[in-house]
Each structure stands twice: as structure tokens, then as C-alpha cells.
């Protein structure tokens, strides 16, 4: 029931009037159990209706409200005010262009997701009458973890390689490709390798591991990327030393 006054330093940017982003300070009366998203909603509803930001579910499943909170990529709906002291710095997710205020341009991310062919590519054609695919618990477990991604892009904001090399496919996209490669129903790994094993695929990763640390769903994209690297390396040496093995 108790209240506390929280200071937010929020990065503002109006493309129609501003040459560059700048910080704006808001003083917000907050409830003890609030998250940063609640504070932002209070600002928008009561103090400054011009503040723009993405959000939806308010329960860490939709992936909309990713932003930099005290320079760390976080979901605003999962960042409890009680965990912060002093002025809280709120900025748009790093490594993405700023559209307006806390809204980023995510076109690059969406395009990269599509490039890894994130859909079932059957091993052989299967008629509907043949019935459903069957999968053991072990086969499901093999890729289950990588299905949990909510496309929140925190991993892209945490990854310095993506910040330094914008062409890099990035953690979520590679993990997504790996999810399908590991699926026993799928036969499309060779097709996905064109993207995953390219220079701008898994090879730009230097295993900083920040992506897995910030991931709210514990997908472990870093692990997925290393697994892709190892598989791609084995492929490469087999292809170049014993080409008859790989048709």
C-alpha cells in the first residue's frame, strides 16, 4: 500500500522536431509493487501523454516492452522499482535505430527472423491422410528450449557484436534456425546453413554470452550459436576432406 516517489530519466526523441534524442526527467508517485512499465503508464496517463513506448501483456510473455533500464536490456513489465535506487535511466533498446522516444525500428530483426526459414521443411512430402507427426518426449526435449523465444530483442541489445556489426544475424534468429534444425520432423538444415553458416551468421559471435544472460525466457541463444558453429565446422571439414560422405 505504501508509495514512493521515483525519478525517471527517459530518453525522448521526436523525429519531427528534434535533431537528436535528449533526456527528460519525470517525478512519479509509485506504489511499492510497481514495475517500470507501471511508472511509464502513470507518466503517459497523468503527466505527459506524448511519451511513446511499446507494451502489451504486462506479464513478460509478449516481448513488446524491451528497453534499456539503467543501461541493461530488460522487459519494463518485469523490472521491479523496488530493485532500483536513485534515478532510473530509461532508454530505447540498444543497437536499434530510434523511431520515436522509446520505440525502436525493428525491421532488421524481423527480416532476419524470416531469413532462417523458421518453419517446418519436411524431410519428405507427407500427405494429410498419412496422419500426424509423432515425436517422443526425448525428441521434443531436444529443441523445446529454443521454442521459448518471445522475440523481445533484449539479446540483440545485449550483444556487442550486433552493435558493432549490424549485418550480424544475431542471437534470436540463429537460435530460431537451430530450433528447427533440432526438430526431428524437419529436414531443412542444409537450406538454413546458407544463412546460419554464412560469415554474418553464427561466425560473428564471439561467445560473450550476454544474450543468454539477459534472455527473460532462458532460451540460451549463446548455446544454440555455439552448437551451430560446431556443427558447421564438422560439416565444413567433412565437405572439404571427404566430399563423398555429404552426397
Amino acid at each position, binding site marked *: 500500500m505504501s508509495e514512493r516517489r521515483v525519478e525517471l530519466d527517459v530518453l525522448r526523441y521526436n523525429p519531427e522536431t528534434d535533431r537528436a534524442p535528449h533526456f527528460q526527467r519525470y517525478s512519479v508517485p509509485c506504489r511499492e509493487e510497481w514495475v517500470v512499465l507501471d511508472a511509464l503508464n502513470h507518466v503517459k496517463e497523468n503527466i505527459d501523454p506524448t511519451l511513446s513506448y511499446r507494451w502489451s501483456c504486462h506479464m513478460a510473455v509478449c516481448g513488446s516492452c524491451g528497453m534499456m533500464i539503467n543501461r541493461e536490456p530488460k522487459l519494463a513489465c518485469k523490472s521491479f522499482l523496488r530493485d532500483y535506487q536513485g534515478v532510473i535511466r530509461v532508454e530505447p533498446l540498444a543497437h536499434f535505430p530510434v523511431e520515436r522516444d522509446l520505440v525502436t525500428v525493428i525491421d532488421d530483426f524481423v527480416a532476419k527472423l524470416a531469413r532462417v526459414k523458421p518453419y517446418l521443411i519436411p524431410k519428405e512430402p507427407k500427405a494429410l491422410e498419412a496422419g500426424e507427426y509423432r515425436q517422443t518426449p526425448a525428441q521434443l526435449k531436444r529443441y523445446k528450449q529454443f521454442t521459448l523465444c518471445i522475440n523481445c530483442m533484449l539479446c540483440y541489445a545485449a550483444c556487442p557484436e550486433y552493435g558493432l556489426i549490424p549485418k550480424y544475424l544475431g542471437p534470436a534468429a540463429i537460435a530460431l534456425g537451430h530450433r528447427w534444425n533440432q526438430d526431428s520432423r524437419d529436414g531443412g538444415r542444409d537450406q538454413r546453413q546458407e544463412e546460419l553458416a554464412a*560469415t554474418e551468421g553464427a*561466425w560473428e559471435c564471439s561467445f560473450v554470452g550476454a544474450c543468454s544472460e539477459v534472455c527473460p525466457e532462458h532460451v540460451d541463444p549463446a548455446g544454440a550459436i555455439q552448437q551451430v558453429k560446431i556443427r558447421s565446422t564438422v560439416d*565444413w571439414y567433412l565437405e572439404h576432406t571427404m566430399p563423398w560422405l555429404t552426397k
Partner: protein
Amino acid sequence: MAKSNKPIVWGPFAAGGTLTAFLTPVLIVLTLLAGFGHVPDLLGYEALRAFAAHGVVKMGLVVVVFLSLWSAAHRLRITCYDLGLRADTLVATLVYALAIAGTVAAAIALLRLTPA
């Protein structure tokens, strides 16, 4: 987007990283002991020459030197880029050349170690 040839440099990096993780610390302990005046038996002149006289050992040492230097070189290349040095091709050429030069130097030294 074509598949990269990165495995050529990454394979030895991964192997070297694993090798140096297992082996380098204890080897440094040996040379550090020597530094403190407590020279391990193997690092005595006669013992080391006898050890390094075998062809198998020579080959093993060349492999250890190559993988150690290569993985260090690769990491240095990546770190330079991380810290803002954008001339990747130049840096890569320099570091890998250094690794190969060190390996060649080791090989030459070992070839000169004919049994006394």
C-alpha cells in the same frame, strides 16, 4: 549468402582453446618453478634434450605450439575488432602470420635437436 570458410580458422581456435585450457596452466607452473630456482627434472638440459629427441615428441610439441599460438592469435583478432580496430583483414593477417612464424621457429629448433 554463401557458407563461410570461417571453420578453417575456427577449428584450430577451438582445438587450441581446449588444449591450452587443459595443458598451459600446469606447463606455466613448471616454468614458474624453474623461475624460483626449483628446476623440475624434465627442464634440466640433458633430460629435456632426451625428451625432445623423439620424433613423436617433436611432432607433438609442434602441434601444441601451433594450436596454442593460433587460438591466442584468433582471440586477439576478435578483441581488436571489439575494441574498435576495424582493419580486420590486416589484423588477421598479422596475428595468424605471427602464429605460423612461431610454429615454424619451434619446428626449426626441434629439427636442430639431433640426439647428442
